[in-house]
């Protein structure tokens, strides 16, 4: 295992980020920091701005105010340090790529005209335990396998930061807990900083170091105990909410049931995922 640099520089530093999209303020004054080898979650309901935030970090989505720094530099030129796993992956069954080929395409990053580094490909396949389907067409794999193939694709460039957009959606319980375990290992053993977006933080709680809770484009950040508190969340939602705890799982509900009816989506989706 190579010695990682001892610098305490944060891997990702987002400060006062504001993004407007089509006349709508999608993200407002977002600030948080990710350290080396940590697992963080970006929690929020549909339309809270999670994907926009990920796209800003990748430099795909321009922003109006604030700054994003990856390993102390601007994103441009640092893309080879970032691995990205988009949401809803479904490869074409006709795609003439084996899992191994897809992983090799990720490894070359910006220098796509160079040949592939087979050691990096083998490491990435091993990291997600994809050796058994390395020779199969990616489009023929199950959803969970395709996702692991894409994670290996992202790992093949040996990133310092790994971004995953809704990786737990559409996974059954067993695959989801397996993925969570994998992400924990990547962070602890390889020192990769992992940032995951999700509707529901509960499956991630065992490995979570840090939480960014997004509501309507504004965020609260910190560790779980600092963020998931009724006073912090009250301010974010703009109406009183309460935090219920049951066997180490967290549920956020509006105090006044009437408000729950008005803004039901995240509560219902949380419940759905537990049913």
């Amino acid at each position, binding site marked *: 295992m190579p010695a990682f640099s001892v610098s305490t520089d944060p891997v990702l530093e987002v400060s006062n980020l504001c993004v407007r999209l089509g006349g709508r303020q999608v993200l407002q004054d977002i600030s948080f920091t990710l350290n080396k080898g940590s697992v963080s979650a970006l929690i929020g309901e549909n339309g809270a701005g999670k994907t926009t935030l990920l796209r800003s970090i*990748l430099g795909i989505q321009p922003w109006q105010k604030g700054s994003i720094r990856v390993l102390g530099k601007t994103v441009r030129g640092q893309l080879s340090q970032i691995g990205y796993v988009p949401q809803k992956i479904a490869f074409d069954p006709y795609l003439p790529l084996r899992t191994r080929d897809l992983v090799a395409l990720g490894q070359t990053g910006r220098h796509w005209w160079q040949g592939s580094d087979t050691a990096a490909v083998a490491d990435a396949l091993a990291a997600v335990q994809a050796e058994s389907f390395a020779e199969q067409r990616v489009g023929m794999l199950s959803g969970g396998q395709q996702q692991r193939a894409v994670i290996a694709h992202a790992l093949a460039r040996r990133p310092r930061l790994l971004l995953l957009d809704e990786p737990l959606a559409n996974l059954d319980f067993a695959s989801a807990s397996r993925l969570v375990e994998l992400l924990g290992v990547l962070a602890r053993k390889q020192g990769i900083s992992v940032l995951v977006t999700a509707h529901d933080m509960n499956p991630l709680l065992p490995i979570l170091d840090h939480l960014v809770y997004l509501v309507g484009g504004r965020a609260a950040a910190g560790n779980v105990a600092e963020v998931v508190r009724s006073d912090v969340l009250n301010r974010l939602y703009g109406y009183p909410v309460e935090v219920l705890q049951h066997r180490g799982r967290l549920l956020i509900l509006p105090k006044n049931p009437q408000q729950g009816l008005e803004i039901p989506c995240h509560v219902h989706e949380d419940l759905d995922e537990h049913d």
Partner: protein
Amino acid sequence: MTDPLHLASFLHNSAVQTALWIGALAAILNGSMGIFTVLRQHSFAGHALGDGSSAGGAVAIFLGSAALWGFLGMAWLAALAMGALGLRRARERDLATGVVLGATLGISALFLYLDVSSTQASGATVEVMFGSIFALDPQLLWPTIILVGVAIALIVLLYRPLLLIAANPDLGRAAGLPVRRLELLYLLLLGTAAALSALSIGVILATALLLGPAASALRLTRRPWQSFLYAQGIALTAVLGGIYLAFMSYYWSGGASWPVSFFVVLLILLLYLASAALASRRRAKH
């Protein structure tokens, strides 16, 4: 009868030689580009570029210049127009493609009419739409070789990023690829492929040559390199075989040879069905 297959007269005929060369070049480029087109489900766009290039052929005949440049120019223009009108959302893409196609076909209708009525080029419609592979000017061979050479070099150089953005554009963006520019390049290469098939085997066959071999190849292999080679091989078989059969039909049918386009499309269809049968037999075995 010492040569019942008429191979000697086939291969020594200079018109046939030009036809074989240009047909082969068109087949190689179309087979390769077809892989991306089938994967992206861009069949309509690929077809529209072929049909659209007919307007260029019609204008070129009207102006009395070489048809190749007309086909190419219009195919590139149509590619740029389709890129500008929006390729991102599938719904918009379909309509934008249709509108570009309609406009270019309208222009074809006008210029083919003008060709026939004012320049005595009475065979213009047949020449543009169905190709005139046995009447190709041998001087077009070198420009065609250069065009296909450049296009194939670009595909070899860029096939990895092109395949990645065809698989999932977000992965391409995250890898720092200039996705928009690559997509425009893909459209221009597609236009080049369409223009070459329009020139050789005719506008109407461009679509089959683009899609058929590639779709067959994608069934037969899971390796990226192989898929390109298979597609090129199938396209070559269809075009060269079609030219040969059309040449031979002169002897069977008592002096009225059947069109090349008919035989090429027949071979493409048969090879497509054969690949489907082969793939399903292979699946049954596993």
